């Protein structure tokens, strides 16, 4: 009873906090314009339901764990209102960019950004069926059904004309053929000046670094010609330094996650990284969120409290999280005591940026982009993929590997054979979850749960801890 009361108190507190961010934004934008934009961009309706995440992430969790994920949700709401502010209040400086190109340089140039893939990633978290209409739109235009549903969602959004007008677009050859080629279609649809960064396949030597730094310089010059943006190197330095502070905090967070049982886990680790490092790196707001989450983890550690009440298994998640079953690990914690400790999208080995000179900053950013999770894993040689998995396995004292086996990701599907054999050799239990990243019609939530049940019962010899929810 006490736990329930505390849960609802925290829920209500953050529910109010998030609305306190949304309402002023609407008032600033104006009621008439808000209604007009809700009609023009219907996905805004789904974003308005963002508080659902408070329930999905918070329900049934220990107090500080719930507080950590609620702080994260409030940070997400702030981010969304900032992004919408960019779109609505600074349209003359707006550029569209691909998710593989983080926005540090754009922000240092004074440009506003709209990440094209954001809707395809974020909306299914709130409403699992959100992207189906956009996927269908792409397929109706002749895009084959086997193409990854994230670029299909993104293309569908543009084909439906539900994206804000922008000055230019920046994309790259990452992370895969479908992602790269989707921009050919988007460019033809928007008729926007488009810049494409070329990232080498052999990216681990100095030759590749120099090549890609030159690419970034070429991009800056191009943006200065095509948009009102002007490069402010001092501002870039501030952004990179703030980003480095965020990285330091994140590494402390990882140190906590290494402890068995972990005082902090799940979305507090992976979603904080995914959201802030990809969308708002180098902002004070992001650093503050990391500080708060870290502090809650430290308090748990000091009192000997684990994030997951009964941590029986520690899992590594590979590939992007299951967006339309975003509370998977909240469910798994209660069903089997499985705690998500680390994931492929969060882990990286080259986190800090040297801010000594303009060139060192570009080198640091270049290394981060080239070594981004979907760059080095999805597109790069298989060694990157395998080496990171088994390194993380040891570093974080993990018991199992769950691969989000997105049916549309050919790059990772084609490594499953090697991975199976290597996991067998290493004695690492492996679950490959068959599903589709953005389309729950392929494998619904129940189908995913069935696969996990089979794995946990047959391979891990674990019984469900929540017979009631199984019956439900």
């Amino acid at each position, binding site marked *: 009873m006490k736990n329930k009361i505390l849960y609802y108190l925290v829920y209500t507190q953050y529910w109010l906090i998030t609305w306190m961010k949304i309402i002023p934004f609407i008032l600033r934008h104006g009621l008439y314009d808000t209604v007009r934009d809700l009609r023009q961009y219907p996905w805004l309706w789904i974003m308005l339901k963002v508080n659902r995440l408070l329930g999905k992430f918070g329900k049934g969790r220990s107090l500080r764990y719930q507080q950590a994920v609620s702080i994260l949700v409030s940070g997400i709401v702030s981010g969304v209102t900032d992004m919408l502010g960019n779109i609505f209040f600074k349209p003359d400086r707006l550029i569209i960019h691909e998710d593989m190109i983080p926005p540090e340089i754009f922000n240092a140039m004074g440009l506003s950004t709209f990440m094209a893939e954001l809707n395809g990633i974020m909306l299914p978290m709130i409403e699992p069926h959100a992207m189906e209409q956009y996927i269908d739109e792409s397929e109706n235009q002749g895009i*084959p059904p086997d*193409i990854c549903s994230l670029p299909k969602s993104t293309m569908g959004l543009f084909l439906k004309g539900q994206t804000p007008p922008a000055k230019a677009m920046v994309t790259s*050859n990452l992370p895969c053929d479908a992602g790269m080629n989707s921009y050919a*279609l988007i*460019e033809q649809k928007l008729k926007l000046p488009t810049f494409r960064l070329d990232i080498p*396949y*052999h990216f681990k030597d100095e030759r590749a670094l120099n090549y890609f730094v030159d690419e970034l310089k070429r991009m800056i010059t191009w943006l200065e010609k095509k948009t009102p943006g002007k490069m402010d190197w001092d501002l870039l330095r501030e952004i990179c330094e703030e980003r480095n502070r965020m990285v330091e905090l994140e590494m402390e967070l990882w140190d906590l996650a290494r402890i068995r049982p972990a005082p902090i886990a799940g979305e507090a680790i992976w979603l904080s990284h995914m959201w802030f490092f990809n969308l708002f790196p180098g902002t004070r707001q992001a650093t503050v969120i990391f500080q708060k989450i870290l502090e809650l983890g430290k308090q748990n550690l000091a009192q000997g409290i684990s994030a997951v009440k009964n941590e029986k298994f520690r899992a590594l998640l590979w590939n992007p999280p299951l967006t339309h079953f975003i509370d998977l690990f909240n469910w798994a914690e209660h069903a089997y005591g499985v705690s998500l400790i680390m994931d492929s999208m969060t882990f990286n080995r080259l986190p800090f940026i040297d801010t000594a000179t303009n060139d060192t900053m570009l080198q640091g950013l270049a290394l981060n982009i080239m070594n981004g999770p979907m760059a080095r894993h999805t597109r790069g040689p*298989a060694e990157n993929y395998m080496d990171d998995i088994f390194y993380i396995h040891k570093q974080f004292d993990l018991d199992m590997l769950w691969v989000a086996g997105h049916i549309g990701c*050919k790059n990772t599907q084609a490594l*499953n054979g090697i991975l199976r054999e290597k996991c067998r050799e290493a004695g690492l239990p492996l679950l490959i979850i068959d599903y589709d990243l953005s389309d729950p019609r392929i494998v619904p939530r129940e189908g995913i749960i069935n696969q996990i049940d089979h794995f946990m019962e047959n391979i891990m010899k674990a019984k469900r801890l929540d017979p009631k929810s199984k019956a439900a």
Partner: protein
Amino acid sequence: MNRPMPTHTHFFEDLLNDPMNYLVEASMDKGKIPIGYTCSYVPEVLLSVDPLIPIRIRAPGVLSTEIADIYLSSVICSYTRSVLEMAMDDQYGFLKGWVFAASCDHMRRLYDNMKYLNQADFIHILDVPHRHGNDSFSWYADELKMLLDNISSHHEIRFDQAALSRAIQDHNDFSALLTSIGDMRKPKNPPLSGTEFQAITLSSLVAPRQSILPKIQEFKESLSRQEGISDYRARLLIVGGQMDNLGYIRTIESTGGLVVADHLCTGSIPRLAPIRMDEDPVTAIAAHYLNRISCPRMMEAFDSRVDDIMKSIEEYRVDGVIIEFIKFCDTWGIESSLLANTLRKKGVPVLCLEREYQMTGEGQIKTRIQAFIESMGK
């Protein structure tokens, strides 16, 4: 269109039945070194410097890919799966090396799996940029130099300027011969079908040039005695990636279509364009392969691909375009939608044909081609 195959065509077709045909075997007896390659961005001309002979990797006769599917999964293009299946069956054991290009997701993963499964003692992957420009050109030229160094150290071959220039000259002479035959398809009643032309181009990719050259010359001479083909309903241009099975074009032509031009990885346009002889050989080769080969993997080249297709439509008096691609190919999958819509807006009839690598579904393909030709009012 019903037309008996001339004797020469059977000769070329026979070479396609087995990865190690008798011309390759005879060359190996003379000390030649066959190197396999999988993509048009691997310069075959570099692999034809004596004593090397380039062999475009095909997987004829693979009926199922059970073993390859364990590694590559069943959602990867069936060309790469068929190649891995054949490699694991040791049917490429005669090759003395493999050269891949990191040209698409599927090729990269084929390389990864081949490397893991230890199927070759010499294996190299070229990093091909995704855009044109000075920096990417230098990158690609350096990649070619690294490939040559790697081959040199492995097979103890010297790639001096003279040898490279000779290989380019041979390439240009050979390409000119094939182009002259391909050009015979421009008139209203061409003396050869698309199937016959494809048999020549494909066999030239899997057999030593010097061995096959006299037969192609004979074939060209025989064409002057051939009656022009007139019993066709529509002149077709075929656009797409790897298509190395004669069955597809044969099926298309059995319904009354006549394939008069192709923009295929394994075809003639623009692959057979000459390489410049007036500059450093590696530079000239890099320029040819990076700038002339036209694959949707090149990010900024969509408009030029459309222009090239429109040019061929005019030159070869094409009635309709067939865009073919192997299922699960992401680059061609998205390109086909965009390309079809663009060409249709220009008034060009287009059929998108998603297919498997091996010839399957002949009846369905026939029905679709017939419907396409009828939709053009032919």
